[in-house]
């Protein structure tokens, strides 16, 4: 079974008609996993578990069940709890952690027949995607192994080790890594996918997103994963739309805005700049109206996001203390044990980040900087909402640069991560955002980001399908090049 040339929708149809195909699917997944070992994409992958999943699905199909994701190989970032695999958050702190229950998302995917093949590598606790803080080392980019993939989730889709990947996107991590690996990804509106059973570091922005190789697959996956959940009080009460069936009816007139200040970031690479400008020309040629608009506060988003996410991480990760969760360091007193446990188990990057969160939470800075950042968040949210009243979409690059070299300057500690320049604003505002793969003149993948109105993922998916139809098929790295 060649998983490189098949979509999730096609695979489900085939497997539903002939459950005998599950065996070759399982064998292909194992082969791809073995071939891609050097890329360090997976934290957990177990052949025996995969065989159990396929056997259980075959039994369901034999009983006449027709689940919507039957036989689709899917992976999860390692901060989404599973009872059948450890959930490490790529941290030494949780290296031995076995969740007592699976995330609501995992239950939904299993109920719908997806094969959850493994747990993927990420930055520690999902914080950023261009550094080197995973306890398991850097996930390498399938396009050029000396570059970072940003996350194992996006790399797994790029190499066909999975047709769908689910991972958290707080300030933009999933979208950025999808851009680095040349795959599509959507971060739905805040609250669209339940966070119950997801170990997040900044709850007010964190949202589970999906990566895939086609728009149709994204829609199929989002439809299966989205919906209200009483176990997550922040989940949206409204039922999610039937994305897959709504997809084809979107050929109407589209009006897109681009922030005038899109190229005013020092980290913008020439290759990405040229690529975005060329994409805008193509989009106009497709009949989509494109206007440059003044969004005065868009550029402030990474600043507000850095402060808010650090304060939330300081609070959210306080229970990783060697008592309630995590590994325990040796110490004589309780206070010392907390400090020793956390200092031994957290990366230097995470220690500094939560140290900054503690600093901003202090009496001296809380009102001055944290509340100010939250007011900036309101201003950014209002500005985007006003823009999206007039326009169907907002377009930007996804990241200012292509996948960074592992061990390069971006490994250094940054409170203001330059990768967040375009992705932070929709995360603060809770808006859906999608990254569509494009390519620089050097042949490296980059991303075109589409931001939509809150609750309207359908508009993004329709626009993405339109982009997909208007160009040659997406490129993926050859298996031999891994």
């Amino acid at each position, binding site marked *: 079974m060649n998983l490189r040339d098949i979509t999730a929708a096609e695979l489900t149809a085939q497997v539903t008609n002939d459950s005998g195909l599950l065996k070759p699917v399982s064998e292909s997944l194992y082969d791809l996993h073995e071939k891609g070992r050097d890329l360090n994409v997976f934290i957990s992958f177990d052949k025996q578990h995969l065989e159990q999943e396929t056997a259980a699905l075959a039994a369901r199909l034999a009983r006449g069940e027709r689940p919507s994701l039957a036989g689709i190989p899917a992976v999860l970032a390692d901060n989404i709890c599973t009872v059948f695999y450890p959930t490490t958050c790529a941290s030494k702190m949780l290296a031995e952690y076995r969740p007592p229950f699976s995330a609501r998302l995992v239950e939904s995917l299993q109920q719908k027949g997806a094969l959850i093949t493994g747990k993927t590598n990420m930055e520690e606790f999902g914080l950023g995607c261009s550094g080197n803080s995973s306890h398991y080392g850097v996930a390498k980019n399938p396009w050029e192994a000396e570059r970072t993939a940003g996350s194992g989730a996006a790399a797994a889709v790029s190499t066909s080790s999975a047709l769908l990947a689910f991972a958290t996107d707080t300030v933009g991590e999933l979208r950025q890594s999808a851009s680095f690996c040349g795959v599509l990804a959507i971060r739905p509106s805040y609250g669209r996918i339940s966070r119950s059973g997801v170990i997040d570091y900044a709850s007010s922005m964190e949202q589970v997103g999906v990566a895939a190789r086609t728009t149709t697959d994204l829609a199929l996956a989002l439809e299966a994963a989205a919906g209200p959940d009483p176990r997550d*009080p*922040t989940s949206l009460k409204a039922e999610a739309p039937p994305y897959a069936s709504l997809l084809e009816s979107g050929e109407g007139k589209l009006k897109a805005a681009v922030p005038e200040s899109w190229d005013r970031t020092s980290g913008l690479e020439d290759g990405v700049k040229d690529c975005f400008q060329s994409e805008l020309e193509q989009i106009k040629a497709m009949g989509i109206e494109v206007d440059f608009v003044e969004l005065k506060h868009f550029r402030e988003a990474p600043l507000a996001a850095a402060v808010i996410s650090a304060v939330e991480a300081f609070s959210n990760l306080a229970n990783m203390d060697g008592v309630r969760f995590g590994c325990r360091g040796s110490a004589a007193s309780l206070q010392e044990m907390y400090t020793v446990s956390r200092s031994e188990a957290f990366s230097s990057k995470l220690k500094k980040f939560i140290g900054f969160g503690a600093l901003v939470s202090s009496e001296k800075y809380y009102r001055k900087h944290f509340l100010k950042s939250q007011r900036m968040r309101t*201003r950014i949210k209002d500005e985007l909402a006003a823009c999206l009243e007039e326009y169907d979409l907002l377009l930007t690059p996804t990241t200012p640069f292509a996948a960074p070299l592992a061990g390069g300057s971006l490994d250094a500690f*940054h409170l203001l991560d330059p990768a967040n320049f375009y992705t932070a604003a929709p995360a603060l505002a809770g808006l859906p955002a999608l990254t569509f793969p494009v390519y620089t003149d050097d042949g490296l993948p980059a991303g075109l980001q589409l931001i939509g109105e809150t609750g309207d993922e359908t508009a993004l998916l329709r626009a993405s399908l339109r982009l997909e139809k208007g160009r040659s098929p997406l490129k993926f790295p050859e298996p031999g090049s891994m």
Partner: protein
Amino acid sequence: MERAAWDARVKLNSEETNELLEHSRLVFEQLDSIPESELDTLQATCYGHSQPNTVREDTEEASLPLSLSLGNAPDADESCFRVPRIIEE
């Protein structure tokens, strides 16, 4: 910064402390450059949507079995998490 590290229950070496000081200063300078007067009238946004936070129905459900609850404890006895003594001698 020492107090912040203590609050966060982490030890930072001098290099890490200096790096964090430098980056914090950069962030604070940028925040200070945004006039307070532009933001005074705005409410703080705490969540990505404005849906009221609600709690689920207060229905009784089975607890996790003790073995599962203690399964990840770094140190436990038969029914409790075991921690170093809190009152020091």
